[in-house]
């Protein structure tokens, strides 16, 4: 078996904040009505908990993010995706849903450091002061779609894989030394 490779192979940048491309990370798009009873139980069985609107809930090594009224983003170890897809298929067999492995369709970045929020403030039209704990914020980073949330003293940002190079470029630019706000 071959090893999966993330979009930028773990590229890193040290500015006034640290930028790291992380991954490969397992991700599943799950579309389903949130009030379908088997959803919560199936998620629980698979180690996730149903997030509130616009929130992300974290489990041991996995998270579930609310993307829209009928869409969740499940984040989990890459190696666990196949088993989780099977678990979803069986748990939701009688429930109208769509689960798609999108692990390879995405890129994930960590933005860390005391001033990590300043990096995002330059790229995303988001009021970071009012970002709630465990809020998953869908927004844009400069010219591309992105989502981020605060985690472990920094931020985790997700973009599409094809624009990973662009996202790394704008993060580098925003985090360059001397450009502190």
């Amino acid at each position, binding site marked *: 078996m*071959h090893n999966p490779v993330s979009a930028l192979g773990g590229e890193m940048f040290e500015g006034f904040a640290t930028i790291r491309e992380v991954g490969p990370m397992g991700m599943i798009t799950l*579309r389903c009505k949130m009030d379908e009873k088997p959803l919560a139980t199936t998620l629980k069985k698979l180690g996730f908990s149903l997030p509130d609107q616009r929130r992300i809930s974290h489990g041991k090594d996995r998270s579930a993010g609310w993307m829209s009224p009928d869409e969740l983003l499940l984040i989990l170890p890459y190696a666990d995706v196949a088993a989780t897809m099977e678990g979803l298929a069986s748990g939701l067999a009688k429930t109208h849903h769509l689960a798609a492995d999108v692990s390879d369709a995405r890129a994930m970045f960590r933005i860390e450091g005391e001033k990590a929020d*300043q990096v995002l403030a*330059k790229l995303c039209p988001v009021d970071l002061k009012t970002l709630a704990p465990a809020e998953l914020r869908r927004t844009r980073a400069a*010219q591309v779609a992105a989502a981020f949330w605060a985690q472990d003293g920094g931020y985790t940002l997700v973009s599409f894989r094809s624009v990973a190079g662009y996202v790394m470029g704008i993060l580098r*630019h925003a985090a360059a030394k001397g450009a502190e706000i």
Partner: protein
Amino acid sequence: MSTRLQKGGRLIDRSTRAEFTFNGRRLIGHAGDTLASALLANDQMLVGRSFKYHRPRGIVAAGPEEPNALVNLGRADRLEPNQRATTTELYAGLEAASQNHWPSLDFDIGVVNNYLARFLPAGFYYKTFIHPRAAWKHLFEPIIRQSAGLGSAPKETDADRYEFVYAFCDVLIIGGGIAGLQAALTAGQAGKRVILLEQTAHWGGRAVVDGDTVENESAEEWVTSAVDALKTMENVTLRNRCMGAGVYDHGYVLANERLADHTPGDGRPKQRVWRIRAGHIISATGAIERPLSFAGNDIPGVMLAASVRDYVVNYAVSPGDRTVVVTNNDDAYLTAITLVEAGLSVPVVLDARAQADGPLPSRARALGIRVETGRGIASVKGGKRVTGVQICLQAGEGAVMEEIACDAVAMSGGWSPVVHLWSHCGGKLIWSETLSAFVPDSARPPLNHDGSAMVSCVGAAAGVYDPADIIAGTDSDGAATAIVPVWMMPQGAPIGLRSKMWLDYQNDVKVSDVQLAAREGYESVEHTKRYTTLGMATDQGKLSNINGLAVLSQALGAEIPQVGTTTFRPPYTPVTIGALAGEARGEIFQPLRRTPMHDWHDQNGAYWEPVGLWRRPYCYPRAGETHDQAVQREVINTREKLGLLDASTLGKIIVKGPDAGRFLDMLYTNMMSNLAVGKCRYGLMCNEQGFLSDDGVVARIDEDTWLCHTTSGGADRIHGWMEDWLQCEWWDWKVYTANVTEQYAQVAVVGPNARKLLEKIGGMDVSKEALPFMQWADGSLGGFPVRVYRISFSGELSYEIAIPASHGAAFWDMLHREGAEFGAMPYGTECLHVLRAEKGFIMIGDETDGTVTPLDLGLGWAVSKKKADFLGKRGMERTYLADPERWKLVGLETLDGSVLSDGAYAVAPGTNENGQRNTEGRVTSTYYSPTLKKGIAMGLIKNGPDRMGEVVELNKVDGGTVKARIVDAVFFDKEGEKGNA
């Protein structure tokens, strides 16, 4: 002469010298100087030439309203034209050059225009250069452009970086004077989130210069403690060097922070644009002093009275030993007092009013300053600098009563509140008879979404000048600051004087020009502005607008409020384009979408083609090959051996649910619900009008699930289209979609050796029996998890293999390594196009342009006649689209084997009602076919399919026509044997 005083200068640091150059001359200033104050300290009074007459121009103001002192700042990759010396902070090594002069600032040939001024009135160009028409472009415009123009455009790539920042607050205050600071204290103490912006490097505005008293403290002390108090508040953000540029709907404000303008090359971003969303905006932007219109008011040495104080107090710079003050208000007396207290001479204060008995005039008289009321300036003497003034009665016609020698004139025509930010989003103005100024009409503010006032004005911006009123939030009757307007000096000035009274210094608009415009019928201030160019220069009329419209109103015999103002538009002062572009330049100018194999293509010499935001290899030229040769080699190799195509950009959308089949039957023109699991079917999508929108192969994955391939450019659009129908129209259908385009790298393995390669790699059965044409299978190849589709866009034996993107590059590498023995070569998009054109396959965007139906393209076999409905069905049935006479797809073969021009028209006899040649069709795709060794084309021809064998004429780019025969669009392997192999 202007010079540096021995003492004083609250903003300069005399211990730090800053050497700089002006027009190559080495000069010395101090840290804390502006370029303007440093130039004046070096007696550089002449700083530029005006736009039209090339008149000598000196520094008039001390702030952003400056119209004259514009310089080319820096050089090479840091050259910036039209930079105002008055707002440019001095730094060691600064290089500045004056603009709009030739050959030199002191001796300018263009000044000949000045002597022709009476022949160059308002609208001169419009009137003169109309005929002959062609001469404008080829003769007049080049000459005028040579003699006009201000700074020189930078030619090198900007060395600096810029960025945006998004900010949010309850209260945004623009202007860091007493009013702004007080507003920030109030809002900050109330616990609001506050942002306070100040365009200069210093807090306090005018009050600290004028030595006002605020709450029993000196303004300086009050400002220091206010700023200190604000800095301790966590809910308050203070930014200086940050100009509030524009106010937009919903409390959106753009501000421009000049981070490193004064420290070029220190690694910081040069400028940062703040994109602020504010609950409420407080404009504390102060007021701008007005010039007076007297003859010669543009001669270097004539300055605004308050600006003279700025130079003396802030920078210890004297504009002249002897300064005549001319005014219509008390405030200018402070200038006279300041100058005398600095040890300079004020020969006379000329006050246009009959009486001047306020506290300041009294103080001036007590200092022994001569005050003459009811007097004005008939004319300023001097050329490149002031040498004296001629005094006259304000009420008269300019008869000279006395001539006084001086080397500077400080003028004040009163103050205009800076109402720009109030007005940007629709705040209305009201004319204050007391202040002789437009002030914000608080009853008609710009409105928020909920109808509340979006902006409010405080302090001088609201016409409130007294610090006590500002602090108390009261508005006295303004009696203390009342202004008797003086729009012309003297009021009965004859034309000879009026044609030397400058309104707009930068664009050379005089009182006589505006009066001429009025006589010629220009009644609207907006039209007069454009006709005379009043207020259209880089300063946007900060000094000239009110004076100009007052002159216009007098000439029209109308009241000023009836004439109105021109429109205030952002930005308040110019913002460089680099700042507005933010981070978007160079590598991150635009998102570039990369497939997992992008780097391989790059390393293997791909010649790129943009496809949406993707880059796709057009071809892979080898050493010595032209692109054409590379394409031909790729075509032949793919037809004869083995081609590999990176098809990752192909759109891939999963559609799942109990109603998915029904949904796809509505979306596609043909049936998809009856597609068997494991099989593939080509499908067409139309918009409601019946025009072809997208195409691709659909695969049935399981009972509930289909995978729809779209065109590369159509993936996001079609996904949006699907969601639109599902969310807005068929919201009760149980269907979910997911766009998984980027989840998979996709490789087309194409050519007679395709199967050999996959069999060698091994892992799954890819034989004709196990995996026939138009079927798919999951499995593994060489240890990679794959889904293999037997589909073909080339007519060859072809497998399209989808693989998780994180394995894409490794899989692609393996195919090349293992395929070498079978002649594997990568091919690009142009080869793909040739291959599909040889087979007569249509391409969305080539054969379609939004006006073409599937029936036009002979794709009736893919349009269901059985289905009750699908998107586009009714559209296609409309008479015009069902017309049998429509242009329809055929193949075209030139009789001489040449390649037709792309987009060429088939010409028909005669001309239409517009005198244009009639046409009967057009070329949609045209290529040289290396397989057939001749030009092939597809085109839409009137009644085409019924005219097989006929010869039509198609036009050529370089004139003439070429004959082509109408043939079947399938040029190669008509029976389709190769693809089914």
